[in-house]
């Protein structure tokens, strides 16, 4: 055994670092590259734009990370964003609080539906959430009458375009939600149970954990986070278009989670890694745009990044 360890080349030991810190290293390299070669990269306005654009994906990816931690997946997050967005203009007349509350309630309802289908009926997460992926956006468009609606309520728009201590409110909210999710995962019984279920569900059941209740809670959290992202998107673009809000965000969120080093097989959640994954993808897009590379190249580069990230991190998979 000792000879084996001695014989192992040094880089093999270092390789274990790669899955864990690769995404941070990639961000660092990309930032250094941009600082050196991209004009105006280090301006305050540019950094603000990057963070504001990444914020919705970060928020949705937080919920997705929790779901993936249970070995699940949630395809309905984009539809939930659309639902939340569709409800905002309808209820702003009753006040900002009411509109936000209704949007969040829609998220709770969708999360309950997903959670019950997964936990109680026993559907596979991808199928359970596919139904609302298909139907949810249609419902959102039906609710909004299929029209783009301008939102003019100043208090509400503050959430999307306001500043607090020089930092966009949107970014504060995203950061706060990241902290909350990190706290839930690391410091609460709920978080520990969530990981236990993702790690080995039969064992968690045998240990007497309330598996179904935790699963339902996870899907509700995920949907509520998605509806927050949806209402914040409305506040940022100052209008609500149910057919466009959150389109394909489920793929961006899954990408952020996976690139951040969270395995799809459950049992582990990297919260900061997920944030880094979302920021990395955002930075890639920004860098490509700054260098006049077309969206097509960006997509192909993103594909390669996903494959490399998952390939590097795959040592956990035994199958």
């Amino acid at each position, binding site marked *: 055994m000792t000879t084996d360890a001695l014989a192992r080349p040094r880089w093999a030991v270092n390789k274990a670092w790669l899955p864990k810190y690769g995404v941070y290293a990639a961000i660092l390299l990309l930032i250094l590259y941009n600082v050196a070669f991209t004009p105006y990269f280090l301006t305050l306005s540019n950094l603000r734009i990057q963070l504001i654009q990444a914020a919705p994906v970060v928020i949705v990816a937080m919920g997705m990370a929790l779901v993936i931690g249970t070995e699940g*997946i949630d*395809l309905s997050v984009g539809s939930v964003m659309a639902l939340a967005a569709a409800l905002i203009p309808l209820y702003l007349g009753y006040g900002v609080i009411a509109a936000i509350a209704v949007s969040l309630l829609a998220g709770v309802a969708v999360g309950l539906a997903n959670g019950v*289908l997964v936990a109680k*009926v*026993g*559907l*596979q997460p*991808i*199928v*359970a959430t*596919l*139904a*609302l*992926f*298909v*139907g*949810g*956006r*249609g*419902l959102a*468009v*039906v609710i909004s009458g*299929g029209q783009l609606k301008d939102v003019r309520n100043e208090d509400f728009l503050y959430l999307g375009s306001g500043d607090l201590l020089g930092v966009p409110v949107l970014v504060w909210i995203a950061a706060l939600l990241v902290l909350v999710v990190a706290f839930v995962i690391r410091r609460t019984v709920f978080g520990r149970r969530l990981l236990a279920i993702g790690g080995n569900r039969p064992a968690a059941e045998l240990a007497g954990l309330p598996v179904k209740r935790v699963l339902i809670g996870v899907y509700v959290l995920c949907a509520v986070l998605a509806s927050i992202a949806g209402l914040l998107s409305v506040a940022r673009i100052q209008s609500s278009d149910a057919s466009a809000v959150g389109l*394909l965000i489920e*793929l961006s969120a*899954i*990408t952020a989670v*996976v690139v951040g080093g969270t395995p*799809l*097989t459950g049992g582990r959640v990297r919260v900061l890694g997920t944030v880094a994954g979302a920021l990395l993808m955002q930075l890639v897009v920004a860098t490509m745009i700054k260098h006049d590379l*077309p*969206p*097509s*190249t*960006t*997509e*192909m580069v*993103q*594909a*390669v990044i*996903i*494959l490399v990230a*998952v*390939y590097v991190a*795959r040592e956990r*998979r035994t*199958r």
Partner: protein
Amino acid sequence: MSATLPANPGRMAGVVQRQGALAVLFAVVVVSLALFPGFRSVDNAGTILIAAAPPMLIALGMTFVIITGGIDLSVGSLYALGGVVAAWASPYGFVAALAAPLLLCGAIGVLNGVLISRTGMAPFIVTLASLLGARGLMRSISDEGSTTYLVENDAFHRIGTGSLLGVGIQVWLAAVLVVLGVLLLNRTRFGHGVQAIGGSEDAAALMGLPVRRIKVWVYLLSGLLAGLAGAINAAKLGSGVTVLGSGMELDAIAAVVIGGTLLTGGAGSIAGTVAGVLLLGVIQNLINQNGDVNSNWQQVISGAFLAAVVVAQTYLARARRTKSP
């Protein structure tokens, strides 16, 4: 406990689970024939079938993939890519217009299969990456979507627009491929291998099945069919439209699941997939016909149908497991 119960309830549940989509399709068609005069025409039946042909091909490939316990998220992008490449290659002749999308999409399918079977990465992730990659490729071929290639070959154009014995050529094509698919799945060593891998990959490997090779073939098949579906659609529209295909992979998965194929792999039926595709097509057709129904209800109803069918199937599958010996 099972000894005291008759085996019938379990077997019935199994039959319903496998043929449920067909039964629901039959019921929906009968009700629609009675209630909607516009549904009754032969023309309308042709419309439904022609609209269903490309999704049918994609869902056919997806059925094989899902039976192995995998998933292919790249088919929507390959559908768009196939259409653009077919139109792009059409000035060079009929063969080029058909071969170019098949070669390119087949190659991406092989890449999917090799990555999945050799590296142990999850099919979901690998095909998510090729979803992005194929879309990027499609956009770079079409100058970021600004160039629309027209189909400049009459023979190829006819695949999408012509008909034979009153039935659209693409419907014939889909029907033939479905029959071949059924034979391939149920009557060949390859098909049995596909089912064995989905049942238990380890057991299949221990039995000496070439697991990796079969997986590569399955993703190749899925890529080829998605590319062909895109080519057919380009032939029908007369151009390679770049904005299509987004979300198509999930429609295909929905059709396969409605058709009774379990996402856990191991078992599935192509007949069910056909019923699932037609069911979604009929719902769409009914809503398109009723001008006073908001077309967005189509998605709502499709989603509700999907949920209802899969919930019913889950309970039936459970009944089968617990009641049949």
